[in-house]
């Protein structure tokens, strides 16, 4: 079960993920990112500080946007992951393919430098 909240700060769209993302809920993550892109945001921050779990279905959603974001010059930075969630990304080396910051301050810095 996942709750997704969105808020905008300094021109960036912040998508906060609350709960667990698995095969039954990854569609909601996909829709939230698609909505942000559809609204024209080019800076997207994903707040993972209340994300308790993410399965491969959720990882796949992030992966599926990498090429499109590169082509459209959209910047996405994830931040605030717990050790367990961070480990899930690093098992497959996705931490190398996605931009991941420690906290919101760092994530904003990364997104502005990209």
């Amino acid at each position: 079960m996942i709750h997704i909240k969105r808020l905008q700060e300094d021109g960036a769209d912040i998508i906060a993920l609350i709960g667990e993302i698995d095969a039954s809920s990854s569609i909601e993550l996909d829709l939230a990112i698609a909505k942000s892109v559809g609204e024209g945001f080019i800076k997207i921050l994903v707040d993972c500080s209340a994300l308790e779990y993410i399965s491969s279905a959720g990882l796949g959603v992030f992966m599926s946007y990498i090429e499109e974001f590169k082509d459209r010059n959209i910047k996405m930075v994830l931040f605030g992951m717990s050790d367990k969630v961070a480990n899930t990304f690093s098992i497959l080396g996705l931490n190398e393919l996605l931009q991941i910051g420690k906290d919101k301050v760092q994530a904003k810095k990364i997104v502005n430098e990209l």
Partner: protein
Amino acid sequence: MERIKFKLRKLSMNYKCKVGCSIENLKDVRDFIRGSLKNHGISDLEISEIVLALDEMCSNLMIHAHHCNPDDLFELSIKVEKNNPLVFELIDDGTVFDINEFTTPAIDSIVHEKRKGGLGIRLVKSIMDKIEYQKTGGRNICRLVKSVHFN
């Protein structure tokens, strides 16, 4: 007075649950796995990796072998024996979805083809030590083995 020595031996523990093939049940499956593995001296990080791999195996089974039919049941069993590898079994009577027969796609091709699948198989193979399938009397048993550190 003669002292009697007791040799303390922790017996192996078996945990079993039956699950309907609806992906809505994955959360309960994860809770069952976490509950079974806690209090055995296995680290939280190792438990979280096992949960991730089994979540993947269960969702594959629900989606590909049972088309998310909530009336189809499969059994998940967990065997914990101190200082031995953990053994997990998924038992069902659907079509076998043998992940060993799938070539693991390269991360690059997953990114390039914007695939949302393919990552899970990589995850399971990176986390588990062994994945084997067996068919007996119309039942499929998928056995996953994982060595962990017991504290």
